[in-house]
């Protein structure tokens, strides 16, 4: 499923790299420990996290993730959004907690 379809279906707020929403989402990963995400996420995953600082962009970029979903309405820090924009990593925000948004994303990409 394409990222822009997920954004529309789930009403996600796009905070960075709106031009990169044509990417295919191949799966997902959930985590707030950056080493865990670095080691275990896969290319094309959508990453759900509560971390909002700019190091999430480096991890997403190195792992070629499809994008980052921030939970509980927490927007990215200003330098995070700027870095994500320049590196072309979409940052999306949901008001839902992680458990609920992950369930919905899973249903959409594994119908």
């Amino acid at each position: 499923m394409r990222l822009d379809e997920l954004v529309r279906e789930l009403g996600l707020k796009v905070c960075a790299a709106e031009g990169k929403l044509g990417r295919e989402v191949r799966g997902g990963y959930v985590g707030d420990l950056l080493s865990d995400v670095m080691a275990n996420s896969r290319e094309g995953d959508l990453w759900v996290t509560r971390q909002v600082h700019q190091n999430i962009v480096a991890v997403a970029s190195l792992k070629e993730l499809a994008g980052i979903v921030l939970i509980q309405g927490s927007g990215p820090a200003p330098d995070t959004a700027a870095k994500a924009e320049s590196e072309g990593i979409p940052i999306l925000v949901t008001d839902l907690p992680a458990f609920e948004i992950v369930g919905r994303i899973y249903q959409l990409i594994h119908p």
Partner: protein
Amino acid sequence: MGEALNFEKSFEVEGGSFQNAGNVSGQIKGILKDLGVSTDIVRRVAIICYESEINIVSYAKRGTITLSVTDEAVKIESKDEGPGIPDIELAMQEGYSTASAAVREMGFGAGMGLANMKKYSDHLIITSELGVGTCVKMMVMNFQKMLHPDLPPFTL
């Protein structure tokens, strides 16, 4: 067959500079892709390189990461000017960390760094001197090339 591959480059990493953490790993990943290194090896080197970079940023005053690429292997050497590690065996255990609360709050310092560096490299040698610094040498082997020497480098 082309000429034997022999590439080396060093990168400086500034301690405490979380805003730049990952930049060196990104550059190294780009170089490996340009050299035509296989995806699996690039993926593993990116992980060990990122963890090396985060360790320098989290614990040391400064450090140097050196990338060497030959047909047989990719080597990463991470050398820092830092506090050193008193008990290397303990530090290698997954879950053990001496990171500050501030570093943990950012999602680092979970005691996975050195464990990941060991897991995703084929060889790892770590030496450390208290009050001087730590040096971690890692190697990711290109076994396909070693098994089939006539193949061009990194084509599998």
